[in-house]
Protein backbone atom coordinates (compact mmCIF):
# COMPACT_ATOMS: atom_id res chain seq x y z
CA UNK A 1 0.00 0.00 0.00
CA UNK A 2 1.46 3.28 -1.06
CA UNK A 3 -0.55 5.45 1.33
CA UNK A 4 1.60 4.38 4.20
CA UNK A 5 2.56 5.42 7.68
CA UNK A 6 3.79 8.74 6.28
CA UNK A 7 0.22 9.79 5.63
CA UNK A 8 -1.99 8.04 8.13
CA UNK A 9 -0.01 8.85 11.27
CA UNK A 10 0.03 12.64 10.81
CA UNK A 11 -3.52 12.53 9.49
CA UNK A 12 -4.84 10.66 12.49
CA UNK A 13 -2.99 12.99 14.84
CA UNK A 14 -4.59 15.93 13.04
CA UNK A 15 -8.07 14.47 13.46
CA UNK A 16 -7.42 13.90 17.12
CA UNK A 17 -6.27 17.49 17.45
CA UNK A 18 -9.41 18.65 15.71
CA UNK A 19 -11.62 16.69 18.04
CA UNK A 20 -9.86 17.91 21.15
CA UNK A 21 -10.14 21.56 20.17
CA UNK A 22 -13.74 21.12 19.06
CA UNK A 23 -14.54 19.70 22.45
CA UNK A 24 -12.78 22.51 24.27
CA UNK A 25 -14.60 25.08 22.19
CA UNK A 26 -18.08 23.67 22.56
CA UNK A 27 -17.65 23.19 26.29
CA UNK A 28 -16.47 26.73 26.61
CA UNK A 29 -13.23 25.84 28.32
CA UNK A 30 -10.98 27.28 25.65
CA UNK A 31 -9.95 30.83 26.46
CA UNK A 32 -10.98 33.26 23.67
CA UNK A 33 -7.38 34.50 23.49
CA UNK A 34 -6.22 31.00 22.55
CA UNK A 35 -9.15 30.57 20.24
CA UNK A 36 -8.25 33.77 18.37
CA UNK A 37 -4.63 32.75 18.17
CA UNK A 38 -5.52 29.33 16.83
CA UNK A 39 -7.90 30.77 14.26
CA UNK A 40 -5.37 33.32 13.10
CA UNK A 41 -2.70 30.64 12.82
CA UNK A 42 -5.00 28.53 10.67
CA UNK A 43 -5.91 31.40 8.37
CA UNK A 44 -2.26 32.40 8.01
CA UNK A 45 -1.37 28.79 7.27
CA UNK A 46 -3.72 28.76 4.31
CA UNK A 47 -2.22 32.04 3.05
CA UNK A 48 1.36 30.91 3.53
CA UNK A 49 1.01 27.40 2.12
CA UNK A 50 -0.73 28.73 -0.97
CA UNK A 51 2.06 31.25 -1.51
CA UNK A 52 4.63 28.52 -0.89
CA UNK A 53 3.34 26.68 -3.94
CA UNK A 54 3.79 29.74 -6.13
CA UNK A 55 7.13 31.01 -4.82
CA UNK A 56 8.72 28.08 -3.03
CA UNK A 57 7.89 25.22 -5.39
CA UNK A 58 7.47 26.93 -8.73
CA UNK A 59 9.89 29.81 -8.17
CA UNK A 60 7.49 32.51 -9.37
CA UNK A 61 8.27 35.53 -7.28
CA UNK A 62 4.73 36.74 -6.66
CA UNK A 63 4.41 39.44 -4.02
CA UNK A 64 0.83 40.52 -4.64
CA UNK A 65 -0.77 37.61 -2.79
CA UNK A 66 -2.92 39.99 -0.76
CA UNK A 67 -4.77 40.78 -3.97
CA UNK A 68 -5.98 37.20 -4.31
CA UNK A 69 -6.90 37.17 -0.64
CA UNK A 70 -8.89 40.38 -1.11
CA UNK A 71 -10.80 38.91 -4.05
CA UNK A 72 -11.76 35.87 -1.98
CA UNK A 73 -12.67 37.99 1.00
CA UNK A 74 -14.88 40.43 -0.88
CA UNK A 75 -16.58 37.96 -3.20
CA UNK A 76 -17.49 35.68 -0.31
CA UNK A 77 -18.65 38.61 1.81
CA UNK A 78 -20.90 39.87 -0.98
CA UNK A 79 -22.40 36.40 -1.34
CA UNK A 80 -23.21 36.04 2.33
CA UNK A 81 -24.01 39.62 3.28
CA UNK A 82 -25.69 40.92 0.18
CA UNK A 83 -27.08 37.80 -1.42
CA UNK A 84 -27.64 35.76 1.71
CA UNK A 85 -26.16 32.62 0.26
CA UNK A 86 -24.73 29.81 2.40
CA UNK A 87 -21.27 30.22 3.89
CA UNK A 88 -19.72 27.15 2.28
CA UNK A 89 -20.89 28.26 -1.13
CA UNK A 90 -19.43 31.69 -0.48
CA UNK A 91 -16.08 30.18 0.45
CA UNK A 92 -16.01 28.11 -2.73
CA UNK A 93 -17.01 31.14 -4.78
CA UNK A 94 -14.28 33.20 -3.14
CA UNK A 95 -11.73 30.58 -4.04
CA UNK A 96 -12.91 30.33 -7.60
CA UNK A 97 -13.00 34.10 -8.06
CA UNK A 98 -9.46 34.33 -6.73
CA UNK A 99 -8.41 31.51 -9.06
CA UNK A 100 -9.78 33.46 -12.00
CA UNK A 101 -7.74 36.44 -10.83
CA UNK A 102 -4.82 34.04 -10.67
CA UNK A 103 -5.26 33.12 -14.33
CA UNK A 104 -5.59 36.77 -15.32
CA UNK A 105 -2.35 37.56 -13.54
CA UNK A 106 -0.55 34.33 -14.38
CA UNK A 107 -1.01 34.41 -18.12
CA UNK A 108 0.58 37.78 -18.89
CA UNK A 109 3.21 37.22 -16.25
CA UNK A 110 4.58 34.02 -17.65
CA UNK A 111 7.24 35.73 -19.67
CA UNK A 112 8.47 37.92 -16.82
CA UNK A 113 11.42 36.85 -14.76
CA UNK A 114 12.53 37.46 -11.20
CA UNK A 115 12.44 41.14 -10.29
CA UNK A 116 10.04 42.14 -13.04
CA UNK A 117 7.54 39.48 -12.06
CA UNK A 118 7.78 40.66 -8.46
CA UNK A 119 6.98 44.23 -9.38
CA UNK A 120 4.21 43.23 -11.77
CA UNK A 121 2.50 41.07 -9.13
CA UNK A 122 2.92 43.85 -6.60
CA UNK A 123 1.28 46.15 -9.11
CA UNK A 124 -1.60 43.76 -9.66
CA UNK A 125 -2.17 43.45 -5.95
CA UNK A 126 -2.31 47.20 -5.67
CA UNK A 127 -4.68 47.53 -8.63
CA UNK A 128 -7.09 45.12 -6.96
CA UNK A 129 -6.92 47.11 -3.73
CA UNK A 130 -7.52 50.40 -5.52
CA UNK A 131 -10.44 48.96 -7.45
CA UNK A 132 -12.04 47.77 -4.21
CA UNK A 133 -11.41 51.17 -2.65
CA UNK A 134 -13.51 52.73 -5.38
CA UNK A 135 -16.49 50.38 -5.38
CA UNK A 136 -19.23 51.80 -3.19
CA UNK A 137 -21.25 48.60 -3.32
CA UNK A 138 -18.71 47.00 -1.03
CA UNK A 139 -18.28 50.04 1.13
CA UNK A 140 -15.27 51.66 -0.49
CA UNK A 141 -12.71 52.86 2.03
CA UNK A 142 -15.03 52.36 4.97
CA UNK A 143 -15.19 48.69 4.22
CA UNK A 144 -17.90 46.12 4.70
CA UNK A 145 -19.34 44.53 7.80
CA UNK A 146 -19.28 40.75 7.73
CA UNK A 147 -20.96 38.35 10.15
CA UNK A 148 -18.73 35.99 12.01
CA UNK A 149 -19.41 32.68 10.33
CA UNK A 150 -15.96 31.12 10.48
CA UNK A 151 -15.98 28.22 12.90
CA UNK A 152 -13.39 25.68 13.96
CA UNK A 153 -14.71 22.86 11.80
CA UNK A 154 -14.71 24.80 8.55
CA UNK A 155 -11.38 26.38 9.37
CA UNK A 156 -9.64 23.18 10.39
CA UNK A 157 -10.74 21.21 7.37
CA UNK A 158 -9.88 24.09 5.05
CA UNK A 159 -6.33 24.11 6.37
CA UNK A 160 -6.14 20.35 6.17
CA UNK A 161 -7.40 20.27 2.61
CA UNK A 162 -5.05 23.08 1.57
CA UNK A 163 -2.03 21.28 2.97
CA UNK A 164 -3.01 17.88 1.60
CA UNK A 165 -3.81 19.17 -1.88
CA UNK A 166 -0.61 21.17 -2.18
CA UNK A 167 1.46 18.38 -0.71
CA UNK A 168 -0.07 15.82 -3.07
CA UNK A 169 0.51 18.09 -6.03
CA UNK A 170 4.12 18.65 -5.03
CA UNK A 171 4.90 14.98 -4.52
CA UNK A 172 4.00 13.94 -8.01
CA UNK A 173 5.33 14.34 -11.50
CA UNK A 174 3.50 17.66 -11.68
CA UNK A 175 5.24 18.99 -8.59
CA UNK A 176 8.51 17.80 -10.05
CA UNK A 177 7.74 19.70 -13.23
CA UNK A 178 7.22 22.86 -11.16
CA UNK A 179 10.43 22.37 -9.20
CA UNK A 180 12.33 21.70 -12.42
CA UNK A 181 11.00 24.91 -13.86
CA UNK A 182 12.02 26.70 -10.68
CA UNK A 183 15.53 25.31 -10.88
CA UNK A 184 16.13 25.98 -14.55
CA UNK A 185 13.33 27.04 -16.81
CA UNK A 186 15.26 26.64 -20.03
CA UNK A 187 16.36 23.13 -19.13
CA UNK A 188 12.83 22.25 -18.06
CA UNK A 189 11.52 23.40 -21.44
CA UNK A 190 14.23 21.38 -23.12
CA UNK A 191 13.11 18.26 -21.24
CA UNK A 192 9.59 18.57 -22.62
CA UNK A 193 7.94 20.30 -19.66
CA UNK A 194 5.32 22.87 -20.64
CA UNK A 195 6.62 25.53 -18.30
CA UNK A 196 4.00 28.12 -19.18
CA UNK A 197 1.20 25.71 -18.31
CA UNK A 198 2.70 24.87 -14.95
CA UNK A 199 3.34 28.49 -14.05
CA UNK A 200 -0.33 29.22 -14.64
CA UNK A 201 -1.39 26.08 -12.73
CA UNK A 202 0.72 27.14 -9.75
CA UNK A 203 -0.86 30.59 -9.80
CA UNK A 204 -4.36 29.12 -10.11
CA UNK A 205 -4.01 26.63 -7.28
CA UNK A 206 -2.16 29.12 -5.09
CA UNK A 207 -4.66 31.89 -5.69
CA UNK A 208 -7.62 29.54 -5.21
CA UNK A 209 -6.51 28.71 -1.70
CA UNK A 210 -5.59 32.33 -1.02
CA UNK A 211 -9.19 33.15 -1.92
CA UNK A 212 -10.49 30.45 0.39
CA UNK A 213 -8.31 31.86 3.15
CA UNK A 214 -9.59 35.32 2.32
CA UNK A 215 -13.19 34.13 2.68
CA UNK A 216 -12.43 32.59 6.07
CA UNK A 217 -10.58 35.76 7.09
CA UNK A 218 -13.46 37.99 6.05
CA UNK A 219 -15.95 36.01 8.12
CA UNK A 220 -13.76 36.02 11.18
CA UNK A 221 -12.97 39.64 11.89
CA UNK A 222 -16.37 41.31 11.49
CA UNK A 223 -15.17 43.88 8.99
CA UNK A 224 -13.04 43.99 5.85
CA UNK A 225 -11.42 47.07 4.39
CA UNK A 226 -9.26 47.47 1.27
CA UNK A 227 -6.28 48.88 3.15
CA UNK A 228 -5.88 45.61 5.06
CA UNK A 229 -5.11 43.88 1.77
CA UNK A 230 -2.19 46.04 0.70
CA UNK A 231 1.39 45.03 0.05
CA UNK A 232 2.16 45.04 3.77
CA UNK A 233 -0.08 41.99 4.03
CA UNK A 234 1.66 40.47 1.01
CA UNK A 235 5.01 41.05 2.70
CA UNK A 236 3.78 39.52 5.95
CA UNK A 237 2.95 36.29 4.15
CA UNK A 238 6.15 36.47 2.12
CA UNK A 239 8.11 36.60 5.36
CA UNK A 240 6.36 33.40 6.58
CA UNK A 241 7.38 31.57 3.44
CA UNK A 242 10.91 32.93 3.17
CA UNK A 243 11.90 32.41 6.79
CA UNK A 244 10.54 28.87 6.73
CA UNK A 245 12.64 28.01 3.74
CA UNK A 246 11.74 28.54 0.10
CA UNK A 247 10.65 25.14 -1.11
CA UNK A 248 9.86 23.53 2.20
CA UNK A 249 6.21 22.98 3.11
CA UNK A 250 7.04 21.95 6.65
CA UNK A 251 9.30 24.97 7.02
CA UNK A 252 6.49 27.25 5.90
CA UNK A 253 4.09 25.64 8.37
CA UNK A 254 6.51 25.91 11.28
CA UNK A 255 7.49 29.51 10.60
CA UNK A 256 3.87 30.56 10.09
CA UNK A 257 2.86 29.09 13.43
CA UNK A 258 5.80 30.64 15.26
CA UNK A 259 5.57 34.05 13.62
CA UNK A 260 1.81 34.29 14.10
CA UNK A 261 2.26 33.60 17.79
CA UNK A 262 5.00 36.24 17.95
CA UNK A 263 2.85 38.78 16.15
CA UNK A 264 -0.07 38.21 18.48
CA UNK A 265 2.23 38.53 21.44
CA UNK A 266 3.50 41.81 20.03
CA UNK A 267 0.20 43.09 18.73
CA UNK A 268 0.26 46.08 21.00
CA UNK A 269 3.64 47.05 19.66
CA UNK A 270 3.20 46.91 15.88
CA UNK A 271 6.32 48.97 15.15
CA UNK A 272 8.49 46.78 17.33
CA UNK A 273 7.11 43.72 15.61
CA UNK A 274 7.88 45.09 12.18
CA UNK A 275 11.34 46.27 13.18
CA UNK A 276 12.05 42.82 14.60
CA UNK A 277 10.70 41.08 11.49
CA UNK A 278 12.69 43.23 9.13
CA UNK A 279 15.93 42.74 11.04
CA UNK A 280 15.36 38.98 11.20
CA UNK A 281 14.57 38.98 7.49
CA UNK A 282 17.74 40.87 6.59
CA UNK A 283 19.94 38.76 8.85
CA UNK A 284 18.39 35.56 7.52
CA UNK A 285 19.06 36.56 3.93
CA UNK A 286 22.65 37.44 4.74
CA UNK A 287 23.54 34.53 6.97
CA UNK A 288 21.06 31.76 6.28
CA UNK A 289 19.23 32.44 3.04
CA UNK A 290 17.75 28.97 2.96
CA UNK A 291 15.64 29.91 5.96
CA UNK A 292 14.67 27.42 8.59
CA UNK A 293 14.52 24.28 6.52
CA UNK A 294 15.89 25.10 3.08
CA UNK A 295 14.15 22.73 0.69
CA UNK A 296 13.94 19.85 3.15
CA UNK A 297 10.77 18.51 4.73
CA UNK A 298 10.28 17.33 8.28
CA UNK A 299 10.23 13.75 7.06
CA UNK A 300 13.80 14.18 5.86
CA UNK A 301 14.91 14.86 9.41
CA UNK A 302 13.48 11.51 10.43
CA UNK A 303 15.35 9.70 7.70
CA UNK A 304 18.51 10.27 9.62
CA UNK A 305 17.14 8.43 12.61
CA UNK A 306 15.60 5.66 10.52
CA UNK A 307 12.16 6.08 12.08
CA UNK A 308 10.19 5.88 8.86
CA UNK A 309 11.62 2.64 7.61
CA UNK A 310 11.35 0.89 4.30
CA UNK A 311 11.32 4.04 2.24
CA UNK A 312 13.66 4.13 -0.69
CA UNK A 313 13.26 7.81 -1.27
CA UNK A 314 16.04 8.88 1.04
CA UNK A 315 16.80 12.57 0.98
CA UNK A 316 14.33 13.32 -1.76
CA UNK A 317 11.96 16.14 -1.21
CA UNK A 318 9.70 14.78 -3.92
CA UNK A 319 8.47 11.19 -3.94
Amino acid sequence: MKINKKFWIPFSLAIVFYAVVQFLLSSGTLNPYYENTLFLICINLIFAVSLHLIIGITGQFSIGHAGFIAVGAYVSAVLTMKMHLPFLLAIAAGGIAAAIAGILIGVPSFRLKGDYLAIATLGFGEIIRIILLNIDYVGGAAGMNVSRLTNWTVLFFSVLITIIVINNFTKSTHGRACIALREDEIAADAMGINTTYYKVIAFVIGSFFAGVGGALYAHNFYIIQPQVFGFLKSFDILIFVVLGGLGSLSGTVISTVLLTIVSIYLQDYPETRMILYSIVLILTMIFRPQGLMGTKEWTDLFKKYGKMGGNQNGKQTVA
Partner: protein
Amino acid sequence: MELIQQLINGISLGSIYALIALGYTMVYGIIKLINFAHGDVFMVGAFTGFYLITVFHLPFVLALVLTMLITALLGVVIERVAYKPLRNATRIAALITAIGVSLLIEYTTIYLRGAQPAAYPDDIIPNKTIAISGLTISSQSIVILAVSVTLMIILELFIHKTKTGKAMRAVSVDADAARLMGINVDRTISVTFAIGSALAGAAGVAFGIYYIKIEPLMGIIPGLKAFIAAVLGGIGIIPGAMVGGMLLGIVEALVSAAGFSLWRDAAAFLILILILLFKPSGLFGKNIREKV
Protein backbone atom coordinates in the same frame (compact mmCIF):
# COMPACT_ATOMS: atom_id res chain seq x y z
CA MET B 1 -6.97 75.81 -19.68
CA GLU B 2 -7.71 73.48 -16.84
CA LEU B 3 -5.88 70.90 -18.91
CA ILE B 4 -2.75 72.99 -19.22
CA GLN B 5 -2.92 73.82 -15.54
CA GLN B 6 -2.94 70.13 -14.79
CA LEU B 7 -0.07 69.64 -17.20
CA ILE B 8 1.98 72.07 -15.17
CA ASN B 9 1.09 70.15 -12.01
CA GLY B 10 2.08 67.06 -13.87
CA ILE B 11 5.49 68.43 -14.70
CA SER B 12 6.17 69.36 -11.09
CA LEU B 13 5.07 65.93 -9.94
CA GLY B 14 6.97 64.40 -12.81
CA SER B 15 10.23 66.04 -11.83
CA ILE B 16 9.89 64.63 -8.33
CA TYR B 17 9.28 61.17 -9.79
CA ALA B 18 12.23 61.68 -12.14
CA LEU B 19 14.61 62.47 -9.28
CA ILE B 20 13.57 59.32 -7.43
CA ALA B 21 13.55 57.24 -10.60
CA LEU B 22 17.16 58.18 -11.32
CA GLY B 23 18.26 56.48 -8.12
CA TYR B 24 16.39 53.29 -9.01
CA THR B 25 17.71 53.18 -12.51
CA MET B 26 21.33 53.84 -11.57
CA VAL B 27 21.33 51.18 -8.86
CA TYR B 28 19.60 48.64 -11.08
CA GLY B 29 21.98 49.44 -13.90
CA ILE B 30 24.99 48.80 -11.73
CA ILE B 31 24.03 45.83 -9.55
CA LYS B 32 20.76 44.61 -11.05
CA LEU B 33 18.88 45.14 -7.82
CA ILE B 34 15.49 46.79 -7.37
CA ASN B 35 16.27 48.89 -4.32
CA PHE B 36 12.93 48.63 -2.55
CA ALA B 37 14.24 50.88 0.20
CA HIS B 38 14.79 53.77 -2.18
CA GLY B 39 11.29 55.17 -1.66
CA ASP B 40 12.02 55.25 2.05
CA VAL B 41 15.22 57.23 1.48
CA PHE B 42 12.95 59.74 -0.25
CA MET B 43 10.81 59.78 2.89
CA VAL B 44 13.83 60.25 5.14
CA GLY B 45 14.86 63.17 2.92
CA ALA B 46 11.45 64.76 3.37
CA PHE B 47 11.62 64.44 7.14
CA THR B 48 15.26 65.51 7.36
CA GLY B 49 14.46 68.66 5.40
CA PHE B 50 11.47 69.20 7.62
CA TYR B 51 13.46 69.04 10.84
CA LEU B 52 16.33 71.11 9.43
CA ILE B 53 13.92 73.86 8.44
CA THR B 54 11.53 73.86 11.36
CA VAL B 55 13.78 72.89 14.26
CA PHE B 56 17.14 74.23 13.16
CA HIS B 57 15.70 77.11 11.19
CA LEU B 58 18.05 76.60 8.27
CA PRO B 59 17.39 78.45 5.04
CA PHE B 60 16.01 76.44 2.14
CA VAL B 61 19.15 75.94 0.07
CA LEU B 62 21.28 74.96 3.04
CA ALA B 63 18.62 72.56 4.26
CA LEU B 64 18.39 71.03 0.81
CA VAL B 65 22.12 70.49 0.48
CA LEU B 66 22.45 69.11 3.99
CA THR B 67 19.51 66.77 3.41
CA MET B 68 21.12 65.50 0.26
CA LEU B 69 24.34 64.80 2.12
CA ILE B 70 22.51 62.97 4.88
CA THR B 71 20.45 60.83 2.53
CA ALA B 72 23.56 60.11 0.47
CA LEU B 73 25.18 58.79 3.63
CA LEU B 74 22.10 56.71 4.42
CA GLY B 75 22.22 55.19 0.95
CA VAL B 76 25.85 54.19 1.34
CA VAL B 77 25.24 52.68 4.77
CA ILE B 78 22.33 50.60 3.45
CA GLU B 79 24.45 49.38 0.57
CA ARG B 80 27.41 48.40 2.68
CA VAL B 81 25.46 46.75 5.48
CA ALA B 82 22.62 45.02 3.67
CA TYR B 83 23.34 44.71 -0.04
CA LYS B 84 27.08 44.16 -0.31
CA PRO B 85 26.98 40.80 1.52
CA LEU B 86 24.41 39.65 -1.03
CA ARG B 87 26.24 40.62 -4.21
CA ASN B 88 26.63 37.00 -5.19
CA ALA B 89 23.33 35.75 -3.86
CA THR B 90 20.22 35.04 -5.88
CA ARG B 91 18.19 37.98 -7.12
CA ILE B 92 15.31 36.88 -4.97
CA ALA B 93 17.42 36.94 -1.81
CA ALA B 94 18.62 40.47 -2.62
CA LEU B 95 15.08 41.61 -3.36
CA ILE B 96 13.80 40.17 -0.10
CA THR B 97 16.60 41.92 1.77
CA ALA B 98 15.66 45.19 0.09
CA ILE B 99 12.08 44.69 1.26
CA GLY B 100 13.44 44.07 4.75
CA VAL B 101 15.48 47.28 4.69
CA SER B 102 12.46 49.20 3.48
CA LEU B 103 10.29 47.91 6.31
CA LEU B 104 13.06 48.60 8.79
CA ILE B 105 13.40 52.25 7.78
CA GLU B 106 9.64 52.80 7.80
CA TYR B 107 8.95 51.30 11.17
CA THR B 108 12.02 52.73 12.84
CA THR B 109 10.80 56.16 11.76
CA ILE B 110 7.37 55.44 13.21
CA TYR B 111 8.94 54.08 16.36
CA LEU B 112 11.04 57.20 16.78
CA ARG B 113 8.54 59.94 16.02
CA GLY B 114 5.15 58.29 15.69
CA ALA B 115 3.03 57.65 12.64
CA GLN B 116 1.33 61.01 12.54
CA PRO B 117 1.95 63.26 9.56
CA ALA B 118 3.94 66.50 9.70
CA ALA B 119 3.38 69.66 7.73
CA TYR B 120 6.02 71.64 5.91
CA PRO B 121 5.66 75.38 6.47
CA ASP B 122 4.10 76.80 3.33
CA ASP B 123 6.26 79.88 3.17
CA ILE B 124 9.67 78.36 2.63
CA ILE B 125 9.54 79.56 -0.89
CA PRO B 126 7.85 82.94 -0.98
CA ASN B 127 4.36 82.25 -2.12
CA LYS B 128 4.05 84.07 -5.38
CA THR B 129 2.07 83.05 -8.36
CA ILE B 130 2.84 84.06 -11.86
CA ALA B 131 -0.06 84.53 -14.19
CA ILE B 132 0.52 83.93 -17.87
CA SER B 133 -2.44 84.12 -20.22
CA GLY B 134 -4.92 82.71 -17.77
CA LEU B 135 -2.61 80.15 -16.21
CA THR B 136 -1.38 80.40 -12.65
CA ILE B 137 2.03 78.95 -12.00
CA SER B 138 3.13 78.87 -8.40
CA SER B 139 6.66 79.78 -7.43
CA GLN B 140 6.91 76.36 -5.80
CA SER B 141 6.41 74.67 -9.14
CA ILE B 142 9.08 76.82 -10.74
CA VAL B 143 11.59 76.20 -7.97
CA ILE B 144 10.98 72.45 -8.02
CA LEU B 145 11.37 72.32 -11.75
CA ALA B 146 14.51 74.48 -11.61
CA VAL B 147 16.08 72.41 -8.85
CA SER B 148 15.25 69.13 -10.58
CA VAL B 149 16.51 70.18 -13.96
CA THR B 150 19.70 71.58 -12.46
CA LEU B 151 20.37 68.38 -10.57
CA MET B 152 19.71 66.27 -13.65
CA ILE B 153 22.06 68.38 -15.74
CA ILE B 154 24.76 68.09 -13.07
CA LEU B 155 24.20 64.33 -13.06
CA GLU B 156 24.52 64.03 -16.82
CA LEU B 157 27.74 66.06 -16.76
CA PHE B 158 29.06 63.95 -13.93
CA ILE B 159 28.30 60.68 -15.70
CA HIS B 160 29.86 61.72 -18.96
CA LYS B 161 32.66 64.04 -17.98
CA THR B 162 34.20 62.70 -14.80
CA LYS B 163 36.33 59.65 -14.17
CA THR B 164 33.94 58.35 -11.53
CA GLY B 165 31.06 58.76 -13.94
CA LYS B 166 32.92 56.77 -16.52
CA ALA B 167 33.64 54.12 -13.92
CA MET B 168 29.93 53.93 -13.13
CA ARG B 169 29.12 53.34 -16.76
CA ALA B 170 31.84 50.72 -17.05
CA VAL B 171 30.74 48.78 -13.98
CA SER B 172 27.12 48.71 -15.15
CA VAL B 173 28.19 47.13 -18.42
CA ASP B 174 30.63 44.57 -17.04
CA ALA B 175 31.74 44.66 -13.43
CA ASP B 176 34.45 42.03 -13.82
CA ALA B 177 36.00 43.71 -16.83
CA ALA B 178 35.89 47.03 -14.99
CA ARG B 179 37.68 45.48 -12.04
CA LEU B 180 40.36 44.15 -14.35
CA MET B 181 40.79 47.64 -15.73
CA GLY B 182 41.68 48.81 -12.25
CA ILE B 183 38.34 50.37 -11.36
CA ASN B 184 37.45 50.12 -7.69
CA VAL B 185 34.08 48.45 -8.15
CA ASP B 186 33.03 48.64 -4.51
CA ARG B 187 33.69 52.35 -4.33
CA THR B 188 31.92 52.95 -7.62
CA ILE B 189 28.85 51.12 -6.39
CA SER B 190 28.87 53.14 -3.17
CA VAL B 191 29.12 56.37 -5.14
CA THR B 192 26.17 55.28 -7.27
CA PHE B 193 24.08 54.67 -4.19
CA ALA B 194 25.21 57.99 -2.70
CA ILE B 195 24.21 59.98 -5.75
CA GLY B 196 20.91 58.17 -6.21
CA SER B 197 20.03 58.62 -2.56
CA ALA B 198 21.00 62.29 -2.60
CA LEU B 199 18.62 62.86 -5.51
CA ALA B 200 15.88 61.01 -3.67
CA GLY B 201 16.54 63.21 -0.65
CA ALA B 202 16.17 66.30 -2.80
CA ALA B 203 12.94 64.87 -4.17
CA GLY B 204 11.72 64.44 -0.60
CA VAL B 205 12.30 68.08 0.22
CA ALA B 206 10.67 69.13 -3.05
CA PHE B 207 7.67 66.96 -2.23
CA GLY B 208 7.39 68.52 1.20
CA ILE B 209 7.46 72.00 -0.20
CA TYR B 210 4.90 71.26 -2.90
CA TYR B 211 2.47 68.96 -1.09
CA ILE B 212 3.12 70.10 2.50
CA LYS B 213 1.98 66.90 4.21
CA ILE B 214 4.57 64.20 4.94
CA GLU B 215 4.27 60.95 6.87
CA PRO B 216 6.43 57.88 7.51
CA LEU B 217 4.79 55.63 4.93
CA MET B 218 4.80 58.33 2.24
CA GLY B 219 7.66 56.72 0.37
CA ILE B 220 5.95 53.50 -0.61
CA ILE B 221 3.61 54.60 -3.36
CA PRO B 222 5.81 57.33 -4.90
CA GLY B 223 8.69 54.87 -4.64
CA LEU B 224 6.77 52.25 -6.60
CA LYS B 225 5.65 54.84 -9.13
CA ALA B 226 9.18 56.12 -9.58
CA PHE B 227 10.30 52.57 -10.19
CA ILE B 228 7.57 52.22 -12.79
CA ALA B 229 8.84 55.46 -14.35
CA ALA B 230 12.34 54.00 -14.49
CA VAL B 231 11.02 50.86 -16.18
CA LEU B 232 8.98 53.00 -18.58
CA GLY B 233 12.08 54.86 -19.69
CA GLY B 234 14.19 51.75 -19.80
CA ILE B 235 15.64 50.42 -16.59
CA GLY B 236 19.33 51.23 -16.24
CA ILE B 237 19.12 54.11 -18.70
CA ILE B 238 19.53 57.51 -17.09
CA PRO B 239 17.79 59.76 -19.64
CA GLY B 240 15.07 57.12 -19.63
CA ALA B 241 14.41 57.68 -15.94
CA MET B 242 14.09 61.42 -16.50
CA VAL B 243 11.69 61.02 -19.40
CA GLY B 244 9.78 58.23 -17.67
CA GLY B 245 9.35 60.29 -14.53
CA MET B 246 8.05 63.28 -16.44
CA LEU B 247 5.69 61.18 -18.51
CA LEU B 248 4.29 59.44 -15.48
CA GLY B 249 3.71 62.73 -13.67
CA ILE B 250 1.93 64.16 -16.67
CA VAL B 251 -0.23 61.06 -17.18
CA GLU B 252 -1.20 61.11 -13.53
CA ALA B 253 -2.13 64.78 -13.70
CA LEU B 254 -4.20 64.18 -16.82
CA VAL B 255 -6.02 61.26 -15.20
CA SER B 256 -6.84 63.56 -12.29
CA ALA B 257 -7.96 66.27 -14.68
CA ALA B 258 -10.25 63.84 -16.45
CA GLY B 259 -12.05 63.36 -13.18
CA PHE B 260 -10.66 60.00 -12.16
CA SER B 261 -8.46 61.20 -9.33
CA LEU B 262 -9.26 58.16 -7.18
CA TRP B 263 -7.76 56.04 -9.93
CA ARG B 264 -4.54 58.03 -10.20
CA ASP B 265 -2.47 55.40 -8.50
CA ALA B 266 -3.97 52.63 -10.60
CA ALA B 267 -2.91 54.48 -13.75
CA ALA B 268 0.73 54.03 -12.85
CA PHE B 269 0.33 50.31 -12.25
CA LEU B 270 -1.58 49.91 -15.45
CA ILE B 271 1.25 51.57 -17.34
CA LEU B 272 3.61 49.11 -15.68
CA ILE B 273 1.59 46.11 -16.75
CA LEU B 274 1.34 47.43 -20.30
CA ILE B 275 5.08 48.06 -20.56
CA LEU B 276 5.98 44.68 -19.16
CA LEU B 277 3.61 43.04 -21.59
CA PHE B 278 4.57 44.92 -24.73
CA LYS B 279 7.98 46.49 -24.34
CA PRO B 280 9.74 45.30 -21.18
CA SER B 281 12.96 47.02 -22.14
CA GLY B 282 11.21 50.37 -21.90
CA LEU B 283 11.14 53.33 -24.25
CA PHE B 284 14.89 53.63 -24.62
CA GLY B 285 15.90 50.11 -23.81
CA LYS B 286 17.37 47.29 -25.80
CA ASN B 287 16.37 43.67 -25.62
CA ILE B 288 18.87 41.57 -23.76
CA ARG B 289 18.63 37.83 -24.19
CA GLU B 290 19.73 35.28 -21.70
CA LYS B 291 22.64 33.28 -23.07
CA VAL B 292 21.70 29.67 -23.42
